[in-house]
């Protein structure tokens, strides 16, 4: 935000011609695309190598690399953007030319991200979210590769537009509004990192990449030295020791990878609030991210406590806002307002964002006992199916018959899970917020503003009707789009919905 928004405004709007992205992207695209194609290139190299003809492997991989780089550069050549008084427009594609436009008055979020390569070249990627970004096929408009200063200026220009789009800008509009810091990363929070399990995802991804290289390169894993050594060692040991050793190895790997992931994602984390009420989140060590959430887009807050994090006394805090990307990686369900941290801290940040701590702290109304029966029965049904499949596999494969008793463990885990799922259930309506809590493996407590609720769904399965239960679903344009209050007594569901949004149900009540 070093360039005054006013200056940018004038410059951009008078010169409405199509512009290219920063030419420095010519250095970035090829490297990134090469990275993506690496498994194929390594595979081709190994395949050529393995077939005995040394030069064909390198020739193929060089060829692939050349094509990939050429296409990556073409991307810069064919991409242009412009900012008109009404729209941001992006045009790209060589064979199939596409023009995408985002109306300025519908811009809801502007994210500026810069990964390592971007940062060394002083570039940033601007992703402009409009209201429909979470609908299928219509994602944010991305300007990949503007100069960092230009990106920051564009961001503040897009976000700090006057609320009424038709009204011309006032010359007195503040250029860099004052900001209040709501949260900042405390290094002590790192102790929660191993409990986040994000490392498990990294592990699986690495495994996937390894698998592809092995598969495309036709490598015989059995001939690799380290693999042989480990396999031999495991064969010598008894089965129980093997299981323990693998478990410990996986646990250590996941803990270390999760910690590294935490450091990479959340170093420099800051949550601030600007004059207009806009929330800004900045974070990231190698890839820096800056996200803004306008006040009028914010509908509530979610506290999320995955099981392991919960046992360690930690929680995360997420924003429930319209126009935020849903269902992707770390931002699943909304932008993060606080990384895994002590629960008290998460509640504090959530309360600061909402302006009241009541929705996050009031004791919730428990659900009827029939709900407990249903939670446990559902978990048990799953365990029984899983157990039967397991036993069938044991019998068919002719393994040790002692393994047949393993499903007993499934059943006890299922009962515990079902019970805990019941304990999580709860709802409340305080200070205009609909509060609901749900889940055991990931327990979520969500507070959504009642005026953001745009409809109710009351669902009941055949079995729920027999127990007199209803699942009440509040639909909203924000976050996960729907927030469920599971297994309420029929009458309570109607009463709760009527209390949260008075009048809507009125014509249909008896």
């Amino acid at each position: 935000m070093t360039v005054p928004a006013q200056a940018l405004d004038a410059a951009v709007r008078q010169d409405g011609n199509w512009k290219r992205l920063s030419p420095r992207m010519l250095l970035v695209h090829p490297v990134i695309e090469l990275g993506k194609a690496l498994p194929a290139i390594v595979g081709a190299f190994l395949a050529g190598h393995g077939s005995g003809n040394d030069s064909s492997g390198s020739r193929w991989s060089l060829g692939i690399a050349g094509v990939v780089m050429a296409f990556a550069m073409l991307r810069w050549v064919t991409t242009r953007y412009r900012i008109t008084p009404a729209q941001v427009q992006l045009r790209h594609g060589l064979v199939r030319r596409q023009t995408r436009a985002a109306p300025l008055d519908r811009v809801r979020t502007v994210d500026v991200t810069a990964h390592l390569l971007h940062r060394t070249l002083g570039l940033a990627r601007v992703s402009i979210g409009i209201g429909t970004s979470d609908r299928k096929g219509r994602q944010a408009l991305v300007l990949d590769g503007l100069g960092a200063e230009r990106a920051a200026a564009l961001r503040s220009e897009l976000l700090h537009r006057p609320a009424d789009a038709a009204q011309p800008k006032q010359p007195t509009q503040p250029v860099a509004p004052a900001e209040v810091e709501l949260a900042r990363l405390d290094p002590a929070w790192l102790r929660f990192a191993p409990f986040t399990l994000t490392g498990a995802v990294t592990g699986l991804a690495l495994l996937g990449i390894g698998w592809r290289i092995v598969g495309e390169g036709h490598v015989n894993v059995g001939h690799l030295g380290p693999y042989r050594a480990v396999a031999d060692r495991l064969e010598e040991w008894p089965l129980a020791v093997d299981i323990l050793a693998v478990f410990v190895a996986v646990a250590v790997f996941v803990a270390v990878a999760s910690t590294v992931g935490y450091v990479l994602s959340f170093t420099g984390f800051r949550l601030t609030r600007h004059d207009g009420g806009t929330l800004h989140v900045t974070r990231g060590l190698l890839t820096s991210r800056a996200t803004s959430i306008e006040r009028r887009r914010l509908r509530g807050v979610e506290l999320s406590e995955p099981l392991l994090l919960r046992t360690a006394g930690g929680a995360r805090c997420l924003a429930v806002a319209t126009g935020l990307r849903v269902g992707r990686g770390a931002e699943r369900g909304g932008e993060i307002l606080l990384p895994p941290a002590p629960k008290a801290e998460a509640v504090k940040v959530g309360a600061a964002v909402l302006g009241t701590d009541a929705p996050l702290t009031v004791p919730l109304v428990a659900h009827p006992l029939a709900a407990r029966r249903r939670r446990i029965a559902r978990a048990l049904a799953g365990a029984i199916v899983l157990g039967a499949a397991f036993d069938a596999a044991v019998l068919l494969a002719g393994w040790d018959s002692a393994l047949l008793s393993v499903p007993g463990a499934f059943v006890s885990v299922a009962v515990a899970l079902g019970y805990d799922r019941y304990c999580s259930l709860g709802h409340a309506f305080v200070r205009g917020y609909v509060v609901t809590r749900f889940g055991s493996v990931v327990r979520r407590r969500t507070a959504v503003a009642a005026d953001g609720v745009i409809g109710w769904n009351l669902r009941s399965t055949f079995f729920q009707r027999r127990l007199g239960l209803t699942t009440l679903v509040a639909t909203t344009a924000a976050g996960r789009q729907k927030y469920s209050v599971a297994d309420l007594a029929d009458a309570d569901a109607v009463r709760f919905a009527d209390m949260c949004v008075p009048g809507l149900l009125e014509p249909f009540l008896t």
Partner: protein
Amino acid sequence: MTAASLRAPAHLVDPRAKAYWTVRSLAGWLVIAAVQIIVWVAVKHPDAVHPILFAVTVAVALAHVSVMPQWRYRVHRWEATDTAVYTQSGWFNQERRIAPVARIQTVDTQRGPFEQVFGLANVTVTTASAAGPLKIHGLRRAAADALVEDLTVRTQAAGGDAT
């Protein structure tokens, strides 16, 4: 705060919907049965599994085709007032959906091939939430068009950006 139960929406759908649901589900089952017969004939040495599977399929299909349309017809209902749209759908699992007219974004009608045969149409009312489309199946075509017209007028009167 005294009232604590929702009544069902006022209007039933068109009775021809029963025939439509029957034909549609029958078509689905016929495809499954046809695949089973083809496999049965194509396999060189058919054993007892094929006739048993086929018999089970026929039994389930008969039960589904005879029970589902009647049950559905009794459940499916709809109502549109000045302020809200209210639908009830499903059979084994049921769902009631209520959306305020002020939050409606689009109102569409659709007619699939089977629906056209029976002169029916369905109406989809969407709000800004990806989770909340209200669908009314099995309306007579004229009734569907009238409903769309009606809702469009009311939605425009309500205004707002619907989020």
